[in-house]
C-alpha cells in the first residue's frame, strides 16, 4: 500500500497549524520545502477556507487547511489537510447535538458537517485539478476537529467521486452514528483508515453514544499516555508526534487498550467500581450502553433512532428504548437495571433501585444527569487544556 507512515501524517497534521498562520503562501511553500524537501505544491495559491463557529452562529471564513499536490517522488499523490479550531469545544459540549446527512446519506454531527460543507465548493474545484495531474493516491489528514473533517472528506471522496482515499486522524472526536461508521469501514476499508488517539485525550471520548468511531472494526491506533484523567497536553500534536516517532503503523497497532468484549462488559456492569467520570469510565460506559441496547433491541437496526425526530435528545431516545426493553423482552430488564445502577454509581447517586422503579421518567432523569455530567467533565478537561494554552 501507498500509505503515509505515522510520522509523516503527524508532521502534516501538526504543520498545517503553522502553514495556515504564516502570512504568505510563498513562506508556507518555503517552510514546506525546508521540512519535507521539494515534494509538494500548494494548490491554487490559496488556502482552504471554511466557515467556523459554534452552535447557533457562523463566524467569518478562516483558513482551515490545504490541498497539497505531490511532485517528484510524490508525483501522483495529493494530501487534503485540515486543522482544528477553537470552535470544536463549543460543538462538543453542546447539549442538543444534532445530526445531518453525510454525502453518503448517513447521519453525522451537524456542526462538523456544516464546517465541511462550507469548503465543499473549493474541494470540488480541486477535484478538477486532480484529474489533470493523474492522481492515483489521496491522503486525508487532520488533528482534532481537523480529523473529523478529514473523515467526512474521505466519505465525500468515495461517495461523490468513487475515489478511495487514505484517512489519517490524531485525536479526532467521534464523527457520526453507527450507520456512518459502519459504512465508512466497509466502503473505505479499515486497512486504509489510521485513527490514532492517546488514552487520556478527552476529545476522542466524545460525543458519547450514539456516536461511533471509524473504523468500527479492524485496527485503530491506541497510544498509551499516563494516568486516568484526561490531560491537556495529550491532545496536543507535539505529544502525538512524540508518541508515533520512528514507529510503523504495524508497531503502533500492537499497543492495545484494555479489551472490551461481552464478558468483560457484563463484568464491568456488575461490579461496583469507582465513583466519578473518568476517561476509562466513559469508554466502558459507551460499550455498556451498546451492550444493553442490543439486549433491548435484539438486532433491531440502530437506524430506527432517526425516526424519533428532532424533538428528542439522544438520551431521551435511549431512555425510550431501555424502557421498552424492560417491558417487552424477557431478560433485558436485569441488564437495564445493571446499567442504570452503574450510571447512578458513577454519578455518585444512591443506587437502591429495583426493576419496578424503572419507568421512562426515571431512566430519562438519570441519563440526562449523565449527559450533563459528561458535558461538565468535558468542559473541565478542556479548560485545563486552556490553562496550558494548548490544543483542541
Amino acid at each position, binding site marked *: 500500500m501507498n500509505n503515509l*507512515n505515522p*510520522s*509523516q501524517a503527524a*508532521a502534516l497534521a*501538526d504543520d498545517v*497549524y*503553522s502553514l*495556515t*498562520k*504564516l*502570512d*504568505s503562501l510563498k*513562506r508556507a511553500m*518555503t*517552510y514546506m520545502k*525546508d*521540512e*519535507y*524537501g521539494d*515534494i509538494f505544491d500548494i494548490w491554487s495559491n490559496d488556502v482552504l477556507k471554511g466557515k467556523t463557529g*459554534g452552535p447557533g452562529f457562523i463566524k467569518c471564513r478562516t483558513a482551515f487547511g490545504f490541498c497539497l499536490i505531490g511532485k517528484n517522488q*510524490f508525483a501522483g499523490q495529493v494530501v487534503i489537510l485540515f*486543522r*482544528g*479550531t*477553537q*470552535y*470544536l*469545544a*463549543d460543538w462538543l459540549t453542546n447539549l442538543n447535538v444534532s445530526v445531518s446527512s453525510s454525502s453518503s446519506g448517513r447521519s453525522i454531527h451537524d456542526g462538523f458537517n456544516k464546517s465541511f460543507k462550507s469548503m465543499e465548493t473549493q474541494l470540488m474545484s480541486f477535484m478538477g485539478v486532480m484529474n489533470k495531474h493523474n492522481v492515483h493516491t489521496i491522503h486525508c489528514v487532520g*488533528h*482534532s476537529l481537523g480529523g473529523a473533517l478529514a473523515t467526512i472528506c474521505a466519505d465525500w471522496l468515495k461517495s461523490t467521486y468513487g475515489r478511495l482515499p487514505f484517512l489519517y486522524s490524531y485525536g479526532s472526536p467521534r464523527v457520526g452514528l453507527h450507520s456512518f461508521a459502519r459504512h465508512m469501514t466497509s466502503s473505505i476499508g479499515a486497512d486504509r483508515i489510521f485513527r490514532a488517539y492517546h488514552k487520556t485525550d478527552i476529545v476522542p471520548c466524545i460525543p458519547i453514544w450514539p456516536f461511533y468511531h471509524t473504523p468500527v472494526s479492524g485496527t485503530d491506533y491506541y497510544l498509551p499516555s499516563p494516568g486516568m484523567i484526561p490531560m491537556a497536553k495529550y491532545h*496536543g*500534536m*507535539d505529544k502525538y508526534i512524540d508518541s508515533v*516517532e520512528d514507529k510503523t503503523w504495524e508497531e503502533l497497532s500492537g499497543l492495545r487498550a484494555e479489551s472490551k468484549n461481552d464478558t468483560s462488559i457484563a463484568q464491568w456492569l456488575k461490579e461496583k467500581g469507582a465513583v466519578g467520570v473518568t476517561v476509562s469510565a466513559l469508554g466502558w460506559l459507551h460499550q455498556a450502553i451498546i451492550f444493553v441496547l442490543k439486549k433491548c433491541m435484539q438486532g433491531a437496526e440502530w437506524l430506527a433512532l432517526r425516526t424519533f425526530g428532532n424533538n428528542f435528545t439522544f438520551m431521551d431516545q435511549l431512555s425510550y428504548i431501555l424502557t421498552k426493553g424492560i417491558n417487552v423482552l424477557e431478560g433485558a430488564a436485569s441488564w437495564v437495571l445493571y446499567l442504570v445502577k452503574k450510571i447512578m454509581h458513577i454519578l455518585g447517586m444512591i443506587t437502591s433501585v429495583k426493576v419496578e422503579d424503572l419507568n421512562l421518567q426515571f431512566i430519562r432523569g438519570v441519563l440526562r444527569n449523565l449527559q450533563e455530567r459528561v458535558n461538565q467533565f468535558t*468542559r473541565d478537561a*478542556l*479548560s485545563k*487544556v*486552556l*490553562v*496550558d*494554552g*494548548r*490544543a*483542541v
Partner: protein
Amino acid sequence: MGLSDTGKVCLFSKMSGVIKLNGKPAANARLVRTVNHNKDITDETTSDENGYFEFDAKFTHSLTSMLPQEFAASQKINVHYDGKTYEMWSGVKRVPEENSESRGKPLVVECELSSEEKLIKVNRSPIFSLCTWDVEPDKKRKVF
C-alpha cells in the same frame, strides 16, 4: 466555567536588539509589530540613534477566545525606514511559553535590513527573519 487567570499565553516574547542597514545603525526607524492568535493586535516602537529598540512581551488570556485550540500565534514585525518597508520578522509561535523563540533565554536580536530573509525553526515554530540571535534551531526530523 471557573476559568482562572492562569490561562495567560505568550504571543510574542520580550524582544530587544539593534537594527542596521548596510552595517550602519538604523536610527529612528518605526517598528510595527502585529500578533494574531484569534485576532490582529498591533503596537509599535521607534529605534534610538544607535538603532536600538525594545518590545515588551505580548500576552493574551485564552479566556477571551472562549475555549482553547492548538496553540499557533502569528508574529510579524515590519520596519519602516528611510521611505522603505522591510519585513524584519514573520513567524508562527507554536508554544505558549515566554521566550520560546530563544529557548528560555532573553530574545536579543541583531537585524540587518539589507540581508536575505532566513528561515529557522525553534520549538516547532517557523520564523522567517532578517535577524540573528543566540539560539539552537530544532533538530531536523527527516520524515519524508
